[in-house]
């Protein structure tokens, strides 16, 4: 009777595990690996020696050897991870710098020119125009409940008008109760609620901000975009005031040769509602491809606050009236600076960013 080729397997394995534990660097581990699990390793030569066994014995011995190999390989992997961690810890430690000790006057930095963002600049220019007209500026959150984004704005669930806003739903609570705001209009509701609570009407505010719609990006749309919304709630406000504000804004921002006009539109939160158009900024009204030969470009929506919206926030429609308007900041930038493809705005190529001042 011959002895099994695996008679010493346990001690051989133990020896290997000890040698793995003794590896102290990743380089050493890399160097030792072939002799532990490679073709010339003891495990491999044992594997070859199994060929001489009877089939049944070979199967058992093979399984035994396989188990031992797995143990060794696991140990190797664990050691590799330990050493990787240790190496990172060591290099981080070597890298350690007490930033409290930085001698600021000794820091040498090259002079480099920075550039503001086109959208932020446009937003600021728009804010300034409205601030000059007596508006304050208000911010609002990007994640809203369905109530603020839709229902308080007189867009109940299943309202066909919801199709106007392709909505990203946020996975929180009941389905479709939380959304990424599709427009800045929910900020109107927050402002009016706060004004009722604080008894601080009137409101004359613009609300710029980031919005999201589930639109596939193309040269004139991005799923994330910026809007600015205006809200006036005061005594004796009429549609004439709305038209006047839009006209004054247009001339102030785009130039005195650009006119604004209103035509009937539909928004659930305003009544009467109006789309507003401005003289085409490309052809200055002569008619061109951009404006489909009409001489006019659609800029945004507007209207007198719907009594249902005032009621939802608890404002007495017999005492107060108001209007709202809104349009895209990026679209304004695109029209004014003739940005051929909106997607350039989020690519952040510094050759694009460096053009703005």
């Amino acid at each position, binding site marked *: 009777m011959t002895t099994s080729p695996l008679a010493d397997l346990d001690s051989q394995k133990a020896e290997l595990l000890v040698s793995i534990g003794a590896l102290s660097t990743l380089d050493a581990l890399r160097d030792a690996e072939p002799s532990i699990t490679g073709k010339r390793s003891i495990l491999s030569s044992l594997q070859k020696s199994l060929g001489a066994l009877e089939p049944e014995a070979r199967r058992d011995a093979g399984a035994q050897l396989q188990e031992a190999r797995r143990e060794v390989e696991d140990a190797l992997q664990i050691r590799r991870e330990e050493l990787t961690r240790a190496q990172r810890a060591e290099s981080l430690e070597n890298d350690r710098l007490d*930033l409290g000790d930085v001698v600021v006057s000794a*820091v040498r930095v090259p002079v480099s020119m920075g550039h503001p963002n086109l959208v932020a600049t446009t937003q600021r220019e728009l804010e300034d125009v409205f601030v000059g007209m007596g508006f304050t500026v208000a911010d609002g959150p990007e994640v809203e409940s369905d109530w*603020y984004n839709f229902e308080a704005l007189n867009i109940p669930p299943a309202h066909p*008008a919801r199709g106007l806003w392709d909505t990203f739903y946020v996975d929180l609570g009941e389905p479709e*109760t939380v959304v990424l705001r599709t427009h800045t209009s929910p900020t109107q509701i927050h402002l009016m609620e706060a004004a009722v609570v604080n008894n601080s009407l009137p409101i004359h505010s613009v609300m710029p901000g980031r919005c999201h719609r589930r639109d596939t990006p193309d040269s004139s749309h991005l799923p994330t975009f910026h809007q600015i919304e205006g809200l006036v709630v005061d005594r004796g406000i009429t549609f004439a005031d709305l038209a006047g504000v839009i006209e004054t804004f247009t001339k102030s921002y785009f130039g005195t040769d650009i006119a604004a006009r209103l*035509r*009937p539109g539909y928004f659930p939160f305003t009544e009467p509602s109006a789309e507003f158009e401005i003289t085409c900024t490309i052809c200055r009204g002569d008619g061109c491809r951009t404006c489909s030969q009409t001489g006019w470009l659609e800029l945004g929506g507007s209207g007198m606050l719907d009594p249902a919206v005032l009621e939802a926030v608890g404002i007495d429609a017999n005492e107060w009236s108001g209007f709202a308007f809104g349009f895209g900041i990026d679209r304004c930038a695109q029209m004014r600076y003739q940005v051929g493809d909106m997607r350039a705005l989020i690519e952040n190529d510094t050759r694009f960013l460096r053009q703005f001042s």
Partner: protein
Amino acid sequence: VKISLSWLREFVDLPESAATLRPTLDDLGLVVEGIDTIGEGLDDVVVARIDEIRAIDGADRVRLVVVDAGNGPLEIVCGATNFALGNHVPLAPVGATLPGGFEIAQRTMRGVTSNGMLCSGRELGLSEDHRGLLILDEMTTPQVGVGLMEALGIARDEIFDISVEGNRPDAWSVEGVARDLAIRLGRTLRSPALATPNSKDKSETFATAGIDAPDLCGRLTVSVLRHVVVRPSPAWLVQRLESAGMRAISNVVDASNYVMLELGQPTHPYDADYVAGRTIRVRRARAGETIQTLDGVERELAMPGRGLGDTGDDCVIVDGDDQLLGLAAIMGGASSGTRDSTTDVLLEAAFFDPMTVARSSKRHGLRSEASNRFERGVDWQLALRAAARFVEILKESTPELEWLTDPLDVRGDVPVAPTIELRVGDVERLLGVEISFEDSTIILRGLGFSVETSGGSLLVSAPSSRLDVRSGDAGRADVIEEIARLYSYLRLPRHTPTWPEPGGLNDQQRLRRQIQDVAVDLGVNVAWTPTLGSDGDFDLLSPGLARVRITNPLAEDESVLRASMLVGLVRAWGRNVERGTGNVLLGELGTVFAHPDTVEAPRVTKGGEGGTVLLKLPSENERFTILLGRANDDATTAVGLWSSVAERLGLEDVVVRSGLDVPTGFHPTRTAVLVDRASGTQLGYVGEVDPQLVAELVPSLINRRLAVLDIDVDVLANSSFVQRRSEIVRMPSRYPSAVVDLALVTPHGVHAQDLAHELRGASDLVEEVELFDVYRGINLAEGTRSLAFSVRFSSSDRTLSDEEVTGARNALITSAAALGANLR
């Protein structure tokens, strides 16, 4: 909707061209997106008869066809094969110009001369059909040599593509658009010809109808039409449908579509032989029921939907055996329609609850011409008028038909039109201009409103075609909008209001501008990176943490709200590096989000249907994150940048604290926390990006340090936490100051800035303390380093004496010693 000028002209006299009418329609809120012309270039096309078909040697794709167009035999080479001898087809003779400007000339192919072109429907702009020649025999009884337009009874026409607003259910029809034009132009609106029942039999002797769900179906009418012959519609009708973008199918289906386009009432013709018990009922679908709709899709009914408050109501049409015939108002069942053999038709014209239709349509992802109209609100009083119009249209192609008297007419819950009081001054209060009651009345009556005068007010009630008009204050606004719309927005006055309250920016808005300006001055290019990222991006910084996920993302890698701008910025910087434009500072001022379960005090807001419950929403944090990506930037340049920013923002005493925990993504041993000394508030981080993160996101870069400054703008704007320099100016001393240098051997545990702070407070004479050197050497005690400060003493009212300077210096040394720092 597409509406042809010729169709509008049946309702109102419109000698104007489409181009002339366009601005008028725009100003009525019926925005014209485009105008198509049809029948253009058909003047020269004539009817020709196929007399001979011959093969051409060596050509297998084309044949020689001999036709007669009234002037004897004409040889034409033709590629189509869908015709036979004796067929009549359109011929464009040599010299004709087809729609689109294609000129027909004599051509020679394979030695054969072609003297013109035989045309398909599409080549003539008459249909989309391009499979073969337009076979005229299927549409009319053509005469050889007659002009094609005359033969088909068609005329040049212009088609408006009108975008109808959501609150104008009435404008989804030719009649509705014509009504607006008639009022605006002061012309008469004509009613179309309507048939009347022509049978001795009563409808109830043949069929029955019923409503089991009166809340879902407000009215069900069923007209019985007997002795109908199903055949193609006349050419003019086909053209009308095609002008509106619909395909002709058969005279019965076409008449139904025609009436829908013309009057806005969808109808559904059933073959009476296939409706069990000749009974049509409307009921609520039951849980577990399914229906296969005409589009072949099997749909489960009465399943509650995802939308808020969607209980899963579906309204269905069933027959006498309670078998489903269709999904009411949306689409018929697979076997519900008429067929060639149909002779008896049950025509359903009904009113369905708009909200139920909208929810069903959304839930099943199924929209149709009918559902588009029903969900906006079809005029419930229109049903039998539409049936009469249907019969009138159908009679032309099947004059033998018989319409049974007293069509079945069952009522459920129909909307009640509100009455709105319009007081003197209401119009002016909303529009800023008075429009007289006389003018208002003309406009409103033209739109079908009923108007009465009562005690100095107008009592107005909306027609059943205007379900958008509400009651009370909201209804008054609705009515005034209609007056304004027809009066013309362009005629309304403009007035720029002023008010006493000042405008302006709040603290955070001013800070936002200031910090961006400072950053730009210091070399930062301001970027805009995506708000939505992938799970992988999120896991790079916060593995395993709850995240805010989008349920319906456009793409998987845009499905998680970012918790940091670091990943987006590093990626943007990496792209620039790869393009050779990355030697820059790149920053973004933006919002990052945290899941409500991961923050101590989540944002709570009103939500749920009616805003009646409180919801926990993600918290939002505005930050300004700046990458310093120039070749030699590292943590020290980031500290330098921070120091400049702090100086410009007037942050007097924010310290750079090393050795504190920093978030994943920042270099663990080369990032410090910015701490407001007085309050202990953390303002952000300064240092480097973790090299592991850079390696992950920009694999092409090895061993390049990427420095970072990350500022919490929300905290910074909250002035109660952060020490900002006093607004009150300090007048500089007019007397000479004395400068002394102090090298202090300081234990590692004592921060240089804390020591400097201590020195500043040690004597009233201290004007400024500045660290100018740090020395670590073998000749210093273990665990210490030498910090060299330059200290300037001054007094506002005298020149300091040597004794005073020495005394102050000693005071400084004493206070330093209290922290364990000793003069070297």
